């Protein structure tokens, strides 16, 4: 800014301090102050300090009794605001600017850290709780499935005409065994196997029915390694039941095969 322009701004300092600048000039002057003009800032500061002497010339007088107590009561009922910058007023009513007070901030930082820790602890607790809940729900579902299987198995056991086909491991000493319980009066059957390990990835066990020396796919199933005694209810739609010669269990690609292609694990004849 040119010297003469700066001088012009200095002329505005007095009316500014006395609050007598029109809005346009005031805005212009404040914009000038924002540029950080040291001359005007120093001038203003001196003017403010000087004008505060004027009230000392007045006859001093204490306000009515009771005001002090009212102010203190109000203070005790109202909390202080968070430190923040006061917006500069259109007239600089008071030499107030944004300021920091580190000595009054430490407890806010501490409170913030404690708050964050509490939130993290709560989040961890919720995470654990959700994990536990999911795990419990899975266990309940598994138990419900097993109860349902047992109920179905019991229903088959209660059938009036029950046939049983024993299954044995093809390889001697394999330890594989099983059976098929078959309600002759309906299509319901129960497959039970033991000793089989979980199928390799991409493969599943497959049950075949042998009829007139031909293999008919019945169902694919998975063995859970934690469940040594596997039960599965089946529906056998085989037409003339007396033509059924036996059952075989093989390992087939996931999705099933139309004819046995993998390793034979169990076999049983009627």
């Amino acid at each position, binding site marked *: 800014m040119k010297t003469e322009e700066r001088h012009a701004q200095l002329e505005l300092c*007095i*009316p500014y301090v*006395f*609050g*007598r600048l029109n809005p346009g000039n005031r805005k212009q002057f404040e914009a000038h102050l924002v540029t950080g003009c040291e001359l005007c800032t120093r001038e203003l*500061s*001196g*003017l*403010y*300090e*000087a*004008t*505060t*002497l*004027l*009230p*000392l*010339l*007045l*006859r*001093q*007088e*204490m*306000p*009515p009794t009771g*005001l*002090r107590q*009212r*102010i*203190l009561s*109000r*203070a*005790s009922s*109202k*909390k*202080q*605001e*968070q*430190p*923040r*910058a*006061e917006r500069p*007023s259109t*007239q*600089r*009513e*008071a*030499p*107030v*600017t*944004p*300021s920091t*007070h580190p*000595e*009054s901030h430490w407890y806010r930082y501490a409170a913030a850290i404690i708050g964050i820790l509490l939130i993290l602890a709560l989040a961890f607790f919720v995470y654990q709780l959700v994990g536990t809940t999911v795990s419990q729900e899975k266990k309940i579902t598994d138990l419900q499935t097993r109860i349902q299987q047992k109920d179905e198995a019991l229903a088959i056991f209660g059938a009036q005409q029950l046939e049983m086909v024993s299954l044995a491991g093809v390889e001697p000493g394999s330890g594989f065994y099983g059976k098929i319980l078959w309600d002759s009066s309906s299509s319901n059957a129960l497959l039970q196997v033991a000793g089989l390990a979980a199928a390799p990835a991409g493969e599943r066990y497959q049950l075949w029915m042998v009829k007139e020396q031909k293999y008919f796919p019945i169902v694919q199933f998975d063995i859970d390694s934690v469940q040594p005694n596997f039960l599965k209810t089946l529906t056998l739609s085989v037409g003339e039941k007396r033509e059924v010669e036996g059952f075989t269990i093989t390992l087939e690609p996931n999705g099933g095969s139309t004819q046995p292609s993998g390793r034979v694990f169990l076999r049983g004849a009627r």
Partner: protein
Amino acid sequence: MQRNAIVQRQQVDREDAELLKRVQRSDQRALATLYDRYAGVLYPLNLRVTGSHEAAEEVLHDVLVHVWEKSAGYAPQNGSVYAWLVSLSRSKALEKMRSTNQKRKQEGEGSGQRVNSNADLKQPAPETIIALKGYTEEVRNSLKSLSKLELRLLELSYYEGQSQSDLARMLRIPLGTIKAKMRRGIQKLRQASTEEAKRP
């Protein structure tokens, strides 16, 4: 101004800054101390501006509540706590006075009976601010160099918010003279507040 008065004032400023820090920590006793120190100056200031005891009391209440709630807005680098309080008080008092005048205008009343505390100006003041007693006396002595007109112009401008044009019309004095007298009066005020600091 005597050096001991300035030293006394600087000591008071330091104490005030400490009081304000305590206020920021919600220490009500510190607020009470600030009240005891400055109510005796701020109340007459409010009374001079508003012309009403009731309004002066209300403004003082608002100022102290503002100090309690927004003390973080004070920046020591911009002036003393006392200067902040005086500026706050004057601003709120002028606002109150303007709003009251506006209300009276709307209700078709006159400007009302103003309490003229200025009449007491030349009387000896009961010193209620013990901390600033010596300093206040020194300020009075320093400002004896102000002419009656200079002091009158400063007061009308400071307490009543009169513009220089208003003053020229009201006192029937050329605007140029008003400006020159005010500038000179302010120079004397500034000298009073800084001359001791310039001494070695």
